[in-house]
């Protein structure tokens, strides 16, 4: 039976639910690459351009990790997933980049480009066809997967809503999910915050229906779908949390402008901007986190005294 490999980086964090239910419905086997580790990172650094962003380097490392472990590697190409919006150009080039970086690689690919009327459904139908399934089968599988993935998203959103009502110290961690949940990039930060007994609010668990309206309050011109989510979450949660941590990979094109714009809207609470580049030592990051949390606690105590 055919095995499909999914690199645990970049788009995995947006589309995993959709992919996994789609392939499950079609009774296909899926293999994941390992969690990000030092070897994957050093592989990626060797394969990628020096100037490529950390996330792209990790991605190439994950693809390398999958080679010889599966029949196909899933590498989609995105251009525009929402009307009048675009995505980071890394996603535009992803397929061709992987295809040209590795020799003899079997890639499973679909394309989403709304400017050419190629929507997600069409992409998955073509994906199914390439794997030898009829359009009807793929259609049903896609609908099933879409429904399930939406359900999962809503469940996460509900949980977040509940977390927001607690009295604990709350911190919004705003980042692209592929940085936020990555074992090397965001995970150490999240682990640290959890150890400190802080409730974490995740930027990608904002109610998906309010993204557009919240984002418009900060920026009318932004056109990167994935950055919009981060910006909307900063605007929406800024009055509801005690502090904000923004994680970004170096050098990130969209983030360099979007985060700059978002931060200037936040006035009353402390913001920590972490730009991740060299992952060989997280001591520098931890020191900054420590002092940030000290500031938060002090502020909270002061407020508490004022109120009493």
């Amino acid at each position, binding site marked *: 039976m055919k095995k499909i490999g999914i690199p645990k980086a970049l788009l995995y964090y947006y589309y995993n639910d959709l992919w996994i239910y789609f392939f499950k419905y079609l009774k296909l086997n899926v293999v994941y690459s390992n969690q990000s580790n030092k070897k994957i990172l050093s592989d990626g650094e060797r394969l990628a351009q020096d100037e490529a962003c950390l996330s792209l380097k990790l991605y190439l490392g994950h693809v390398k990790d999958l080679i010889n472990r599966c029949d196909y590697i899933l590498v989609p190409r995105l251009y525009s997933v929402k009307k009048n919006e675009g995505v980071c150009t890394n996603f535009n080039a992803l397929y061709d980049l992987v295809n040209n970086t590795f020799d003899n690689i079997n890639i499973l690919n679909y394309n989403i480009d709304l400017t050419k009327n190629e929507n997600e459904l069409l992409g998955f139908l073509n994906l199914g066809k390439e794997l030898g399934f009829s359009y009807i089968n793929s259609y049903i599988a896609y609908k099933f997967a879409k429904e399930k993935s939406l359900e999962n998203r809503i469940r996460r959103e509900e949980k977040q809503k509940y977390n927001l009502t607690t009295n604990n110290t709350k911190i919004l961690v705003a980042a692209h999910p592929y940085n936020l949940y990555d074992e090397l990039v965001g995970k150490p930060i999240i682990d640290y915050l959890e150890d400190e007994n802080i409730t974490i609010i995740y930027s990608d668990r904002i109610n998906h229906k309010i993204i557009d309206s919240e984002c418009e309050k900060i920026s009318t011109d932004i056109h990167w779908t994935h950055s919009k989510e981060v910006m909307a979450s900063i605007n929406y949660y800024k009055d509801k949390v005690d502090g904000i941590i923004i994680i970004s990979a170096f050098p990130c094109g969209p983030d*360099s402008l979007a985060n*700059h714009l978002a931060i200037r809207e936040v006035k009353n609470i402390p913001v920590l901007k972490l730009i991740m580049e060299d992952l060989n030592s997280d001591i520098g990051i931890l020191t900054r986190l420590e002092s940030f949390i000290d500031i938060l606690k002090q502020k909270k105590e002061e407020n508490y005294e004022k109120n009493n």
Partner: protein
Amino acid sequence: MKRIISFPHLGNYYIPVKYLLEKLTDFEVRQSPPITKKTLELGEKYSPNDVCIPFKYNLGNFIESLDKGASILVQAGGGCRYRYYAEVQEKILRDLGYEFSFIKLISKDKMRVKETYNIFKKLNSKLSLYKFINTFIITLFFIYYMDKIDVIIRKRIGFEVDKNSFINLREKMYKDFYNCNNLTTLTICYFKYRKKFKKLKIDKPKNCLKVGIIGELYTSMEPFSSYFLESELAKMNIELKRYTDLSYLLWKKKLTTKHMLRKTKHYCKYTLGADGLDNVYRTIKLAKKYDGIIHTKPFGCTPEVGAIPIIKKVAKDKNIPIIFFSYDSETSNEGIITRLEAFYDLIKYRKEKK
């Protein structure tokens, strides 16, 4: 007192833009002061740290214009990060305490005639649609002719006999172009100067070195940002070819995308974002007749970073030397010259070996 309208620099294109704005509005049109080191310093000081360098140049231009008394600023917009420049720059400038109105020519990635007309109508209530379209078309031809002449110049300037003869004639041509009021006189003017340029004395050996310049648009069009790469190359007696110019970006790109996809299908299945695919296509094309390729980009330019591995692969397959320049505000002129000289020696050696 008239209000002053101003806009950032991009090579010599301030001339047609000035022409357009002067015809369409009642304001005094004054382009930003020429780019200097100071411009970059100013831009750098107030920009986000990791933004790409065109943003810093643009912001520096705006600040200098505002200091000179401008009260209306124009920003073009376009694809990639350019599309988002305007909003961030406006906010930064307002935070600095400047008062001005800001005009974005292209919104939502596409330029629509009616929307643009409405923008100008707001500036000048007497403007008629006919005059708007007419001036616009003349400006487009202005740009088109400028680029055509530049192609001729790039081929010949490395071999000029009288120093600066090309540059001086070009300055004169711009002045004459600027005084043309309709398409016919502009076209006549263009042909006149084309003849003149072709008659300028050159001393060109038959097997001269030929180099193609590809890369990101701002660094290839604004000489200051690439540390005057083209004139440095001209000093080395090299024939140049550069694809990116304003007429390419405004309409040629759209018309040729399908053709490019067909020609690059061995390497690329999709477009790579911004000018990524274009550069892969150019590499394939240049590899046939040229001796070397120079690729320029600002540091951290995401679309080019995505395209470079593919460009490198093409260059390796086709066996053509290629050199990559990545410009940052800290890049030093000497480093670039040294690398350029080494590159020159390489292509010269290869040519002689053949």
